[in-house]
């Protein structure tokens, strides 16, 4: 079995190779490029699943300890920093999901990206290059043995996210495809925003890694989480806290940026400017989950930070997760863009995962990560299908002379309606995804969300006071309700009622290259929850529950199924879903929204995302730009350079004075006088220059003769 594990580095390598091949060689051939990309990820999937199987078959020890490969990488003084690959139960769980979802989305993209674009669009190949690189990054992250490889993959993904969000930023504004100039600008600004925002988190993570490396001399997970290492870290004091707490918080900062947690969540909704498969892959299923993965991987740090001195490193995770969960769910209520709703939903669900981890339950968080990846990818892809259907409808409508020249966004839910008849397969898929998200038995989301809430409930009951787990549970339960509410609203707006626009009226089903992945993912959304169903004995727990065994601080026993929790949340979910659905299923164009009528000013706040974006614009970006200009002015106009020039001018003035002195006195008498003297002498002496070479030679001969004579005889 060992030799199979040795193939691990190949998993990220296949997509990376695909990327290199496309960029260097085949970028002119669209079909070939997409096939290469799909081939690369398919190989990775096959290998990944083989490894999953191998891990499962290897038994408990392999699940907890895993296998690893080390490469000496960075000479540092007398030691060498190593980089490496590792596979354990946790990795296996991730390896099951990541390449597969990638594969599905790649296949879907092959159809999706062709639509509505010219046949020989060079960006088609470029798109596949980018997502291949992304897949390489994500897979690298999953199989990383240490923080170095993890961070490299992390940033590669960030880069791809940046490139893909800005993917439409250089297309022409084009009424044919319903793209306006503003959208182009939005795309590039969204890309920048995403990169810079996550970069802030990354820098925190970077600092955390640097600190960790400084204090421990290693970045390998397993070595970091040894009890003695953790104790060392606890003993060191940094900024008034134990170093481990600081590091944990810094690492969490990275996760906050990547996983779009409050307060760095602002980039994710804007990132929806990217192509829909990208939203599904990067901004729902995989990359944003990387933050959660990171926290889960480094959980011992958080727990160690928690255990000592009551510094609440882990609590922060739970708190931020709860805030984010609620914030995302509420804002989602007030959005019109079909993808933005899903984006806020993603933010909210990522908050759930953080909540789970923040309660110390590794498996709960990751379980939700896995299920969420399937059903949220499903939702996004279905939404893409819907959007595509609407765009197509707009085409037909324009062709028929309806709504010509009228401007609209195909993402706007307000223009849709009644699509369940026109796009039945998409509808079924969407419904499956929505039910999974809302948490209806037996869809996947039910099991995973329930486990998080049960965990919180359990911890609350164990303590008895209104402690943090209680508030987490409350936020989660409320969040579940809001989730159901906005999903109900969305389903009602999109699939029920009458079409509110010619485009929606003429929409029709997408091609099978898009719908087949939808069906496959829908099956997973339905069934995947059973991998950790309590009545099946929590298999996932066994597989990955013990990966942090070595640290002796993480203890992961499965929480038994709690009917109370499940009951409450199911009831709330069904209620919310029905409420939203019933309010919106007969919504008409131009009508005041039912929520707005009910909530009033609160709705406005929600619609404006709690004004957080505006706050950042006002409090951070403008001052930074102002500061930059201020520094530049200091440099160039006000202080430094003028001073330099002044010194120069002073020197010039001094030299002017010297020049007067020089020409008046020194030159006139000393220099010119001497020159005249020599001039006169030269005038006389020049007659010795006869120009006859033999004269000169004769002089030479005579001279030599004389010298010779002198030398020999005197």
């Amino acid at each position: 079995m060992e030799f199979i594990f040795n193939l691990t580095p190949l998993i990220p390598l296949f997509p990376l190779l695909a990327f290199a091949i496309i960029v260097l060689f085949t970028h002119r051939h669209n079909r070939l490029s997409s096939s290469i990309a799909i081939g690369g990820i398919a190989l990775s999937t096959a290998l990944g699943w083989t490894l999953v199987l191998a891990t499962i078959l290897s038994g408990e020890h392999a699940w907890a300890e895993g296998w690893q490969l080390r490469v000496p990488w960075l000479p540092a003084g007398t030691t060498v920093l190593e980089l490496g690959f590792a596979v354990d139960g946790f990795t296996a769980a991730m390896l099951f999901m990541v390449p597969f979802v990638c594969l599905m989305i790649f296949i879907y993209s092959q159809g999706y990206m062709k639509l509505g674009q010219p046949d020989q669009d060079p960006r088609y190949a470029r798109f596949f290059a980018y997502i291949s690189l992304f897949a390489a990054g994500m897979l690298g992250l999953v199989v990383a043995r240490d923080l170095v490889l993890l961070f490299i993959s992390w940033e590669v993904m960030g880069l791809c996210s940046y490139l893909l969000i800005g993917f439409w930023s250089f297309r022409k504004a084009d009424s044919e495809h319903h793209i306006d100039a503003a959208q182009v600008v939005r795309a590039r600004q969204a890309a920048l925003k995403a990169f810079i925002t996550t970069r802030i988190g990354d820098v925190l993570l970077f600092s955390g890694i640097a600190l960790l490396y400084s204090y421990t001399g290693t970045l390998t997970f397993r070595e970091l989480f040894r009890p003695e290492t953790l104790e060392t870290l606890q003993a060191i004091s940094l900024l008034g806290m134990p170093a481990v707490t600081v590091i944990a918080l810094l690492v969490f900062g990275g996760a906050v940026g990547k996983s779009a947690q409050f307060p760095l969540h602002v980039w994710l909704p804007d990132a929806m400017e990217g192509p829909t498969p990208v939203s599904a892959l990067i901004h729902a299923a995989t990359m944003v989950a990387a933050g959660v993965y990171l926290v889960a991987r480094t959980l011992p740090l958080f727990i160690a930070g928690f255990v000592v001195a009551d510094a609440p490193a882990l609590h922060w995770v739970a708190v931020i997760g709860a805030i984010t969960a609620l914030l995302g769910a509420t804002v989602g209520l007030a959005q019109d863009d079909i993808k933005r709703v899903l984006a806020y939903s993603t933010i909210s669900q990522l908050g759930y995962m953080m909540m789970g981890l923040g309660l110390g339950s590794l498996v709960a968080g990751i379980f939700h990560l896995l299920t969420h990846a399937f059903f949220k990818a499903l939702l996004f892809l279905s939404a893409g299908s819907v959007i595509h259907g609407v765009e197509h409808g707009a085409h037909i409508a324009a062709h028929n002379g309806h709504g010509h020249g009228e401007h609209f966004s195909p993402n706007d839910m307000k223009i849709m309606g009644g699509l369940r008849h026109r796009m039945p397969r998409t509808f079924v898929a969407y419904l499956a995804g929505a039910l999974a998200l809302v948490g209806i038995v037996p869809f996947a989301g039910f099991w995973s969300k329930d486990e998080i809430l049960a965990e919180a409930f359990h911890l609350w009951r164990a303590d008895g006071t209104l402690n943090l787990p209680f508030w987490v549970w409350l936020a989660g339960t409320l969040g579940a309700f809001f989730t159901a509410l906005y999903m109900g609203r969305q389903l009602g707006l999109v699939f029920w009622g009458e079409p509110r626009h010619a485009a929606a009226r003429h929409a029709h089903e997408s091609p099978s290259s898009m719908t087949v992945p939808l069906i496959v993912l829908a099956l997973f959304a339905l069934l995947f929850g059973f991998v950790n169903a309590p009545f099946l004995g929590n298999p996932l727990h066994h597989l990955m529950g013990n990966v942090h065994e070595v640290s002796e601080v993480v203890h992961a026993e499965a929480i038994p199924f709690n009917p109370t929790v499940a009951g409450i949340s199911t009831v709330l979910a069904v209620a919310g879903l029905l409420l939203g659905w019933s309010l919106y299923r007969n919504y008409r164009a131009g009508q005041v929204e039912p929520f707005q009528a009910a909530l009033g000013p609160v709705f406005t706040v929600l619609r404006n995302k709690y004004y957080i974006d505006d706050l950042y614009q006002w409090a951070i970006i403008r001052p930074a730009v102002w500061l930059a200009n201020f520094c530049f002015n200091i440099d160039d106009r006000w202080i430094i350079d003028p001073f330099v020039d002044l010194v120069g001018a002073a020197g010039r003035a001094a030299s002017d004075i010297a020049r007067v002195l020089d020409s008046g006195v020194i030159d006139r008498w000393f220099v010119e006088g001497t020159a005249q003297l020599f001039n006169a002498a030269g005038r006389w002496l020049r007659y010795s220059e006869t120009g006859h070479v033999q004269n000169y030679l004769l002089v030479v001969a005579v001279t030599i003769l004389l010298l010779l004579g002198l030398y020999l005889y005197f």
Partner: protein
Amino acid sequence: MAIPLPWWLTVAAALFAIGLYGVLSRRNAIGVLLGIELMLNAANINLVAFWRYITPQALTGQVFAIFVIGIAAAEAAAGLAIIISAYRRRRTVVVDELDTMRW
């Protein structure tokens, strides 16, 4: 060796003197060049003679003679090229008439 070294030197000196005379007194530039060749030959005879009589086991004398011959070749090539070039411009090879450098 039948002939003592000073005889060789004397012959060489005589050849040198003849060459020098040629250099100093010839009006034709090529004639001057001929004189120079004679002087170089005189030097060569000296070199070889010294080698033969003083350091017969060393190679220096012969090697230097070869160098002198090489230099003579280069000198003749460049010198004659100059003369031809001057002749083309001034239609003369008389040294006295090539006095552009005169005061």
